[in-house]
């Protein structure tokens, strides 16, 4: 389980790194214009950025945001996808075909152009007060909502297909015959049987959401500076590409590691859940 190990190391590093830095008197926010673009050394393992901030600490703080967005986004995607999939499978008929046709269309849409348009919506015009509208928390919430809006179809399809096949299983038919309500059947008898595929889909979603966050932040429409995220650190690095090419390396490597680990972990979980699905 190398991918799980990579994710665990990343999570521990971003959780413990910043508090440890503070304990040793380091501050990721501290600007030191006399030490701009310092080379990696004992004081700054990855050097400093264009404002003289310690790059390793920035990287770990950015990782907190990026991983948080990935987890929260994947959670919402999974919740919405599971709910829609269950609803479609239990309701059948018009509700089912509407949900699945919508899923088909959403899957086909050009995701990023639509995300870019939606991310540009002015939160103040939605009735939020200006202070909240400019906060980092809102940036996170906005990305989570946006990716959930477009991310649910894969999970919904999977849950629907799984539910339909479980509804013909003996123990589920017995529960229904004994008069269990659809809600009870769904929660007590169907969902536990779908735990493995849902876990696989959720793991894959984490990687997708991290990738989406990084792109949006890179384009300046996601997490906005001074709050660091791996994506917006790279957009900064692009401007400094000729002076400090070093800065472009680490945030991207971190994204690649996190996303690849999620994808490989998802594949490994899928194989464990159903060894037949992955070929001879």
């Amino acid at each position, binding site marked *: 389980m190398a991918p799980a190990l990579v994710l665990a190391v990343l999570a521990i590093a971003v959780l413990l790194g910043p508090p440890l830095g503070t304990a040793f008197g380091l501050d990721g926010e501290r600007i030191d214009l006399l030490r701009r673009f310092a080379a990696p050394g004992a004081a700054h393992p990855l050097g400093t950025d264009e404002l003289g901030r310690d790059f390793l600490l920035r990287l770990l703080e950015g990782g907190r945001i990026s991983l948080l967005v990935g987890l929260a986004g994947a959670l919402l995607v999974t919740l919405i996808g599971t709910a829609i999939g269950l609803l479609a499978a239990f309701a059948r008929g018009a509700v089912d075909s509407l949900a699945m046709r919508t899923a088909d269309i959403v899957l086909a*849409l050009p995701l990023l152009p639509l995300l870019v*348009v939606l991310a*540009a919506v002015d939160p103040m015009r939605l009735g939020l007060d200006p202070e909240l509208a400019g906060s980092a928390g809102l940036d996170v919430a906005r990305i989570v909502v946006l990716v959930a809006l477009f991310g649910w179809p894969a999970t919904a399809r999977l849950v629907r297909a799984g539910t339909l096949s479980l509804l013909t299983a003996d123990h589920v038919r017995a529960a229904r015959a004994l008069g269990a309500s659809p809600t009870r059947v769904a929660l007590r008898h169907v969902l536990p049987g779908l735990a493995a595929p849902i876990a696989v889909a959720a793991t894959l979603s984490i990687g997708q959401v991290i*990738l989406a966050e990084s792109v949006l932040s890179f384009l300046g429409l996601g997490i906005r500076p001074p709050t660091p995220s791996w994506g917006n650190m790279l957009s900064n690095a692009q401007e400094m590409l000729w002076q400090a*090419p070093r800065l472009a390396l680490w*945030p991207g490597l971190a994204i690649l590691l996190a*996303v*690849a680990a999620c994808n490989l972990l998802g594949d490994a979980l899928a194989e464990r859940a159903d060894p037949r699905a992955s070929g001879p």
Partner: protein
Amino acid sequence: MRAYLLRRGLETAASVLLVAFLLFALIDLMPGDPIDLMLQADPRLTSADAARLRALHGLDRPLLERFLAWLAGLARGELGFSRLYGRPVAEILGPRLAATAVLVGTSFLLALLLALPLGAIAALRPRSPLDRLVDLLAAFAVSVPSFWLALLLILLFAVELRWLPAGGEPEPGAGPAAWLRHLALPVLTATVLGLGPLLRFVRAGLLEALREPCIRTARAKGAGTVRLVLGHALPQALPALLAVVALQAGGLLSGALVIETVFAWPGMGRLIYEAIMGNDYNLAVIAVLVGTAATLLANLAADLLHARLDPRVRPG
């Protein structure tokens, strides 16, 4: 078949209309509407002037009425004016569409040319070292952030080696060599981006096709590996491949947005981004709508072709 064609056609048309309405409705939620900008630019304007201007441009009408008027305009080919570029939107779109088509088309073709042989090699020898290598390549391609890959390529080929330009477009009147030099890095990035899913689809599709009894028969009759794949397995896998590949059309446009922005390539993706960042929402909405319609039409075409080629999925 005709009923299926009609149903899918209507569905596509309805989706495009729905997306058009949602995009149009979003304009009201964007920061800085045109009248506000006029007010800021000219301090002599009073709020009465603003109300008059809103009435003049029909901005005081209900949303649905404005949408229908806008739609009727689009149908007549009146795409409006771009504030950002100071030109009619219709004039801007043409060259941008062509630039994106060149970028996306070339990289898609390259990705397909790489994915077919690599996927076939992997499918012929499942679990072999070669298969694992192809799997690793696919895993890298689906996990790497495209803009980071683009930055790395710029670092290597433009900053370090100085072989290729870091971005932009050739000067007007430049020869094909200049075009190729400017296209090289964006195309390379987009090819890697497209390669990931394609490799997996080709491998999975061929793997399934190679299990069919007819393959065993062909092999027993002495067909060679090349003939087996090209003559027997690929034709079987192709219709289903076509359908999943068409789903990548949206992904290609998403990729184009990032790649064109990093490399300053003058295509649709960068146009959408610049229009949004420049508060030019009429241009942004029309560009996104054109992109969405193109994507959904590509899917429709693939679905119909799939149904035509593969009798198993043809609905009654």
